[in-house]
């Protein structure tokens, strides 16, 4: 398990020794795009990432999974402000002629869940967030969103923006052929037209470490001791 360290500036994560990878939900989004293309038998998949040079690795991974071309919107560091990112993505996407613009439900590092729906608003496109299932037919989509203890089904026309939850499609591993092929696919680097940044991180902290590890016994015989501890020590019973 990765234990994060806070960098010397006190407001970012120490990146030494960290391995960068595609965010979980972006893996699902890429997979959804690939399956739609396979099902339709046509289409062109562009992957876009805003960030410094390291994001090229993520873009190459998407290309090796089967995406057709990639665009890096270059910035020195990714702002924490979702609207600033959304403005840059919207500027890149507005003339793209895309039928579908897919996002992950949430990025793992910022965990903001704002970039997708903000980009949709800026582009004036219909938007569905956190789709856990998706069907597309005749230029319309039907999707499901999980709620707390419930779910809802929504319908909307394409072109549209959809943010992808887990449950639709597990990402494939790039094949060797895919990895070789990805090297020849176009990866364009452009400066990002970032919006103004109003949301910043001023400090990062690690949550208090858990002090677990106490085994109180074996088998059903340990139950009375557990109940005693839950009552007297943890006071949850």
């Amino acid at each position, binding site marked *: 398990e*990765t234990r994060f360290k806070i960098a010397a500036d006190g407001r970012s994560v120490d990146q030494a020794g960290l391995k960068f990878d595609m965010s979980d939900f972006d893996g699902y989004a890429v997979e959804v795009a690939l399956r739609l293309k396979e099902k339709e038998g046509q289409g062109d998949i562009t992957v876009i990432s805003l960030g410094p040079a390291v994001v090229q690795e993520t873009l190459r991974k998407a290309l090796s999974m089967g995406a057709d071309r990639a665009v890096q919107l270059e910035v020195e560091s990714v702002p924490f402000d979702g609207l600033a990112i959304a403005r840059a993505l919207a500027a890149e996407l507005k003339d793209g002629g895309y039928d579908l613009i897919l996002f992950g439900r949430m990025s793992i590092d910022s965990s903001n869940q704002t970039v997708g729906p903000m980009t949709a608003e800026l582009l004036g496109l219909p938007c569905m967030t956190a789709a856990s299932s998706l069907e597309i037919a005749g230029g319309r989509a039907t999707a499901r969103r999980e709620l707390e203890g419930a779910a809802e089904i929504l319908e909307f026309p394409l072109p549209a923006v959809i943010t992808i939850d887990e449950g639709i499609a597990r990402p494939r591993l790039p094949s060797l052929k895919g990895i070789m092929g990805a090297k020849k696919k176009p990866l364009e680097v452009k400066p990002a037209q970032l919006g103004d940044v109003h949301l910043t991180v001023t400090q990062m902290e690690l*949550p208090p470490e858990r002090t677990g590890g106490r085994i109180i016994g074996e088998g059903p015989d*340990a139950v009375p001791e557990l109940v005693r501890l839950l009552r007297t020590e943890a006071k949850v019973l």
Partner: protein
Amino acid sequence: MANTFAYAETRAGELRRVALEAVTAARQLADASGGGEVHALIVGAPGVAPKAEQLGRYGADVVTVVEDSALDKYSPEVVAATAAQLIGAGGYRVAVFSASAQGKDLAPRVAAKLGVSMISDATSLQLNGDAVVSQHPVNTGKVIAKVNLTGSPALVTIRPGAVAPAEANRAARVESAKPAIDPASARVVPKELIQGNTAQLDLGEAPVVVSGGRGLKVPENFKLLEDLAAAFGNAAVGATRAVTDEGWRPHSDQIGQTGRLVSPELYIAAGISGAIQHLAGMRTSRTIVAINRDREAPIFKIADYGIVGDALEIVPVLTEAVKEAKKE
């Protein structure tokens, strides 16, 4: 200070607990920053207006009710346009939403319409000079970021459970308003609300969560966990991804990095190995109990109390013991 806005979430005509949390958070922020009124918005089908009184009890001074027969289900574009119009016209310093599934859909739409940035999933909320300051767990809860938001209005979604609803006894003035756009013109159309078992507590709200993993062997054995949950009386049942992948439990029960994040007073993990993606969803629980056959299972490293052994034998005994304890 200027007034504060709060969005009061409803589902099937009922106020959700997070609505009371949002109004409470707005009230507390207003009180801590020199006063000002709290204005709440509630949207639904005709019949939702009487809920306004309850929002007054939690600190709303004004409740705007938008009723329309086409709004029995959450209609993202209509609610976003309506909230943006009210917030834009009201001169609010801060607008509070819930970091629920609905709030996370709604707030970024409203923020982009207003051209303002927003804070997500805040576990605290303060005004500090010309900035709104919050804490927000990032990297699946492994790091807590303190964030600073400038610009007005400042939109914030509050993490469910971060603020306990507190009564403030206001007699809210109720105003009715029309949706900002014709519901029939919405491109994104809500078709169906699939209600889960409404008698059951939501995972995010239950004080006790009893979770099962692949170690339970077959789906039928989840009955043992349901019985244990029933013995507690205030518990919900969760699962690992191994379990939801198999279809033993619905995906909505999954706890972890790509599922629900929970932080109950008591979390009981039965037949769960403790993969990092699972821990990401429950590690902030106050007390953790693990039951696992394998003494080396990683779950024991973060458990306050561990029992080594067969969950299928241990859980029923625990259920009886909890029943006894509850009697006393």
